[in-house]
């Protein structure tokens, strides 16, 4: 394998101090709308940025349009919780169902870098079992590819982020390029409680460089990972893939909201994307279109691109678009200790356990959950306390006790269900585009997992010496909504992320995932996009010469 720098020089293209290489942006390629680029990518998050970097390196004329800003971390991000609201996608949306899922915060990103700008930084791989849960357990779905098809891409991306952690004993056992970070009081208590209760816990895997990486500095353990890393220590595509993409001639067109994909009714192929930039409606011609807007916006864009050939929405001949959208059950359990924990110090992502990841035949439910440290800042912690019903003087009293609490979070593998889906509402946004309506309900298996995860976290915290435990039931992450499948009656794209319905239309984001495991999805989204890029390059699919 070539060295990371030879494959992706992003970390060496950043300035040697925190900040941005401004010249790279001002000197970046600017394609004309009328020019047919090789690929127009919609969305510059985990999937879109990885695809952009790979295709630009292969010499493609590539432009990525993003609805949000091209962040300048030194100017745009703050070391403050309430001041970071602008990192989220807060355009209007409607939620419903038995268990409606609040959006617009932890589960949505905005701008170049996407949700990886504010994700905690956990980057676990999926387990081999994740790729055939239907065959093995009769739940979920089988992917049209197996773990082995992604393995080398996992290794590549882990090198490029890079990922730090102990040797990983779960799933397909593997090591990480960077050694594990030191842990804070929160991680210390998780390790202590796990040991005492016979559960294996390991430090990592986090996409935070441990030591200098290119021109990226060492982490300073300031704990504001979820507010965007001003240090450039935590990985996001903004610093791990975009610099290399620009260096190889790609364009990132920020502040550009794509509203519709144009289809030529005679050929059935995509011809480009309609978008709004600075108040003007424009159209970028492209030989290939790749959509990477994540699980709400990707289905929304496809459904809003209905045309004569696709009256029910693009790629929606079999009513698959927007369906099987998943969230992970993400209960957080906190424990009270006589010691001062000060859990906000150090990055929230520190220690994880995947002991409960796989189906346990002795349990009434299928599949499982993972457990990780989380460490809420004051506003999020107030939400945790208020969820117990406390307000007024009791709320203030609980909050004054903040230094004594440690907090764990679980990720439960909620199952894909056909009626958990995105549709278009009659309500319109400021671009006159119908807003997304996200309907979500849990199934029995989901509820049982949520309960089991809470009990496991309570056990760990109590084994570590917690006097009381309090839990908030919540959700994290989104995947699915335009899933990959073996055929067009069960999904929207094939294993290479190519849509069944339109030969030059690809989807390269989390919406293609048929199942989610109990892993944070970022690494897998990048690996799937990197694989799709490789297939595109190898196939020579319509590259301009």
């Amino acid at each position, binding site marked *: 394998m070539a060295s990371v720098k030879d494959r992706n020089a992003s970390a060496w293209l950043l300035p040697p101090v925190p900040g941005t290489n401004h010249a790279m942006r001002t000197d970046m390629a600017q394609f004309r709308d009328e020019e047919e680029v090789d690929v127009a990518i919609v969305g510059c998050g985990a999937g879109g940025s990885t695809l952009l970097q790979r295709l630009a390196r292969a010499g493609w004329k590539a432009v990525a349009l993003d609805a949000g800003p091209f962040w300048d971390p030194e100017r745009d991000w703050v070391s403050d919780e309430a001041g970071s609201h602008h990192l989220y996608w807060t355009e209007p949306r409607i939620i419903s169902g038995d268990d409606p899922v609040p959006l617009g915060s932890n589960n949505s990103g905005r701008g170049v870098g996407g949700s990886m700008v504010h994700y905690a930084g956990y980057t676990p791989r999926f387990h081999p079992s994740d790729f055939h849960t239907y065959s093995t357990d009769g739940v979920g779905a089988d992917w049209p590819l197996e773990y082995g098809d992604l393995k080398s891409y996992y290794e590549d991306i882990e090198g490029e982020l890079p990922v730090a952690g102990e040797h990983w004993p779960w799933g397909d056992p593997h090591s990480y390029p960077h050694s594990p970070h030191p842990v804070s009081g929160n991680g210390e208590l998780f390790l202590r409680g796990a040991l005492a209760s016979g559960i294996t816990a390991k430090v990592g895997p986090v996409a935070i460089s441990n030591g200098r990486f290119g021109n990226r500095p060492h982490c300073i353990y300031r704990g504001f990972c979820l507010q965007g890393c001003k240090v450039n220590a935590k990985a996001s595509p903004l610093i791990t893939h975009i610099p290399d993409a620009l260096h190889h001639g790609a364009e990132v067109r920020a502040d550009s909201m794509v509203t519709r994909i144009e289809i030529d009714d005679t050929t059935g192929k995509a011809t480009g994307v309609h978008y709004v930039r600075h108040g003007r409606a424009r159209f970028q011609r492209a030989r290939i279109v790749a959509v990477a807007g994540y699980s709400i916006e990707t289905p929304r864009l496809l459904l809003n691109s209905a045309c004569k050939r696709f009256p029910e929405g693009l790629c929606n001949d079999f009513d698959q678009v927007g369906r099987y959208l998943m969230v992970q059950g993400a209960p957080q359990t906190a424990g009270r200790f006589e010691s001062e924990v000060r859990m906000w110090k150090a990055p929230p992502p520190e220690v994880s356990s995947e002991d409960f990841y796989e189906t346990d035949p002795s349990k009434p439910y299928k599949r499982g959950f993972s457990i990780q440290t989380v460490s809420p800042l004051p506003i999020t912690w107030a939400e945790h306390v208020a969820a117990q019903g406390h307000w007024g003087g009791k709320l203030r009293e609980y909050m*004054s006790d903040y230094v004594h609490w440690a907090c764990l979070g679980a990720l439960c593998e909620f199952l894909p269900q056909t009626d958990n889906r995105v549709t278009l509402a009659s309500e319109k946004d400021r671009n006159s585009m119908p807003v997304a309506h996200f309907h979500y309900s849990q199934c029995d298996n989901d509820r049982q997992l949520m309960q089991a995860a809470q009990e496991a976290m309570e056990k760990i915290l109590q084994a570590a010496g917690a006097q*009381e435990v309090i839990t*908030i039931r919540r959700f994290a992450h989104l995947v699915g909504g335009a899933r990959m499948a073996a055929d067009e009656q069960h999904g929207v794209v094939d294993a290479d992320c190519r849509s069944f319905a339109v030969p030059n239309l690809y989807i390269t984001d989390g919406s293609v995932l048929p199942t989610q495991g109990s892993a944070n999805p970022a690494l897998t989204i990048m690996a799937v996009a990197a694989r799709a890029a490789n297939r595109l390059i190898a196939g020579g699919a319509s590259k301009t010469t």
Partner: protein
Amino acid sequence: MTALPLDPKDGGGRFPGFDAQRQSPHWDRVTQGVVLARLGRPTDLRFFTVAEEAAARALFDQLLDQRHEPRVPVVNMVDARLAEEQTDGWHYEDMEPDPAAWRSTLAELDAEARERQKRPFVELSWEEQTLLLTDIQAAETWRGRQASRVWSLWTRYACTAFYSHPLAWDEIGFAGPAYPRGYKNLGLNAREPFEVADARPAQDPAAHTAKSRTGRQR
């Protein structure tokens, strides 16, 4: 500015002499701008009508137990968010978007107070207000809405404003922004030179409640 008034039984005075603002020279300039603005003159009200302002002030005082000056100016902070539409964007299918939901739920709060005591919410005694809110929190539905969604709307905005304020950080021992300085001393009972130890570590608010409790988001 002096500390926020908080009774010791509610956790007041646990971090004697601790002052998050004193760390502000160590914050980066952009963060200084954002955080220190919260200590300046509160923004003029633009969103709430006069009647809504009165109800909202009383509601926030109750939710955050702010009985005396100095107060964190929560009503101004929430008003600014709503005026600028700094919401999370989503809304329940059966509820309005947040700005409209605020107007209608405050109107309902006054309507409920009038039905009970023939006076708007702000004119009720502190105890009467507390009782009314306790009933809403315990209800399944309240005036045609799911009570938990109304409660969540109110507490979410209240907590976000209050715990973004450096004076609130002082009473919980949190030093605020940490860039570019970072932390040196990680681990149990490890403190930075500027952090202050909890003077009453045995004051466990959860000590007399169930050993395990659960709530849900929103």
